[in-house]
């Protein structure tokens, strides 16, 4: 059998599409200027940058001048949070509200701020992986400088009540930031309707290039520099602009938004079929709520297995996926997201994340279901832990 390759790790990164590659290539060769230069070559680059900014602004429903290009989602998160914290502290506000299952770009920034004297409240995300608006409301204090809650979770795909949290923050005069890296280009995101003050986006999650993203910062919300230097990005982000990246990001986002309905319906049908097929494997569970979940996200734990073993065996069958197991990282702790759902460590170790794109087919899904069933059986066959579960020495959790 010819080896096939099925890429289902699109939450990690996506392949660039033809639209993005085509949009990028003129700025690698012909239009190579520095937008800060006065001459025609530089001004052509500036025009391209302005065009990309306008396109992205239109997709998010904001003004072009509210868009700041960054190196990606992590930088946007760092800049937004640090800026809101520092500006809050100037008014004596040194409290921040977030959730326990944010991306590390958010969590590690907050950990640093804690060391610098800020106080952070980490809200529970409950068994279904959704933060409660009432709990956000209860956590906000007079000295709260910032609420930061991700739009949709990167591991389990659960979509958060962003519009309601945004409305709440607006009413209480608290800056609201959302890491929308997994949401933008996949589900409708409208910064006005969603009452968002700051929002982070990354291009490579919707078939754009790596190394470019944007931070949306609503007019009137103060934004400090994170990278100091020249006056690029209206003095908010120094460094010669990544014109090719910006152009490709804008083209990819525009394409993603134009085709969202069609692509999301297709992925949703495939996703549901995949979930249904995989849950037929005994002692398996879907992590995160089924309802209100990104159309491309599947995250399932198989009791008695360890995720890295599953990934290696699936890779040998041509399937590229990921896991919340500790063994897939340099640390011995499994995914903080799965632990935040209240799952025991051993269930988190045995998790598999499959994130689809519009490129996946019905045949892919059938192939994956069969392959996963096979490798789960193999891994359980070697597992002493599975023996103990089967003999009743240890009680099944699932």
């Amino acid at each position, binding site marked *: 059998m010819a080896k096939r390759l099925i890429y289902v790790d699109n939450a990690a990164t996506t392949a660039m599409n033809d639209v993005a590659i085509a949009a990028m290539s003129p700025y690698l060769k012909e239009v190579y200027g520095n937008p800060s230069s006065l001459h025609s070559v530089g001004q052509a680059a500036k025009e391209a940058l302005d065009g990309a900014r306008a396109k992205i602004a239109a997709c998010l429903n904001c003004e072009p001048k509210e868009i700041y290009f960054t190196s990606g989602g992590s930088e946007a998160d760092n800049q937004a949070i640090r800026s809101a914290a520092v500006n809050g502290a100037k008014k004596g506000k040194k409290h921040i509200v977030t959730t326990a299952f944010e991306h*590390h770009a958010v969590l*590690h920034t907050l950990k*640093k701020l804690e060391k610098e004297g800020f106080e952070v409240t980490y809200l529970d995300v409950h068994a279904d992986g959704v933060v409660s608006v009432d709990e956000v409301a209860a956590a906000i204090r007079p000295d709260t400088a910032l609420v930061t809650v991700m739009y949709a979770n990167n591991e389990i795909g659960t979509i958060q009540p962003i519009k309601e949290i945004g409305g709440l923050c607006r009413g209480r005069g608290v800056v609201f930031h959302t890491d929308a890296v997994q949401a933008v280009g996949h589900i409708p995101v409208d910064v006005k309707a969603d009452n968002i003050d700051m929002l982070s986006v990354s291009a490579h999650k919707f078939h754009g290039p790596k190394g470019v993203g944007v931070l949306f910062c609503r007019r009137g919300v103060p934004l400090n520099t994170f990278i100091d230097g020249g006056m690029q990005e209206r003095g908010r982000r120094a460094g010669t602009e990544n014109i090719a990246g910006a152009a490709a990001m804008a083209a990819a986002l525009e394409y993603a938004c134009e085709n969202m309905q069609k692509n999301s319906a297709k992925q949703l049908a495939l996703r549901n079929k995949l979930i249904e097929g995989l849950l037929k494997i005994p002692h398996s569970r879907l992590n995160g709520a089924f309802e209100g979940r990104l159309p491309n996200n599947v995250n399932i734990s198989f009791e*008695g*297995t*360890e*995720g*890295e*073993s599953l990934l*290696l*065996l699936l*890779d*040998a069958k041509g399937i590229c996926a990921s896991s919340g*197991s*500790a*063994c*897939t990282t*340099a*640390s*011995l*702790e*499994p995914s903080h997201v799965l632990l935040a759902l209240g799952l*025991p*460590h*051993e269930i988190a*170790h045995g998790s598999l994340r499959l994130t689809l794109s519009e490129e996946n087919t019905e045949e892919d899904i059938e192939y994956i279901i069969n392959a996963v069933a096979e490798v789960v059986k193999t891994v359980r*066959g*070697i*597992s*002493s*832990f*599975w*023996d103990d579960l089967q003999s009743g020495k*240890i009680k099944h959790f699932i």
Partner: protein
Amino acid sequence: MALYSEKVMDHFTNPRNVGVIEDADGVGEVGNARCGDIMKIYLKISNGIIEDVKFKTFGCGSAIASSSMATEMIKGKPLCEALELTNKAVAEALDGLPAHKMHCSVLAEEAIRSAIKNYYDKNGIEYDKSQFPEPHGEEEEQHFEEE
């Protein structure tokens, strides 16, 4: 895959000596499910020689490969030689393990020791206690996400 050597992948995808010995003379189990690694080793011993060895492991690719390689290295060997097997020797036989996976080879060494100790204890055989240090607490290997 670049993460592991071909040898690790070979022993992981085609592990040797997988199974259970129902009437084993010595059984050793180390690790725990919380840390994502449990290794269980079964020994059949006669006249001080390891006649047969089987293992069952819950864990990552390198844990399974380490179990497979370690059982191959002690099969047919006298107990005194098996006791000399070090985690380094297991890792070397696998053409190396990534630094953060070395604890998997440690588990293999400890599982074998624990199975031999179990055999000695069951049969009232005297032994030098210093040969059997307490297995590593996995806790000390933990390195959390501190910068």
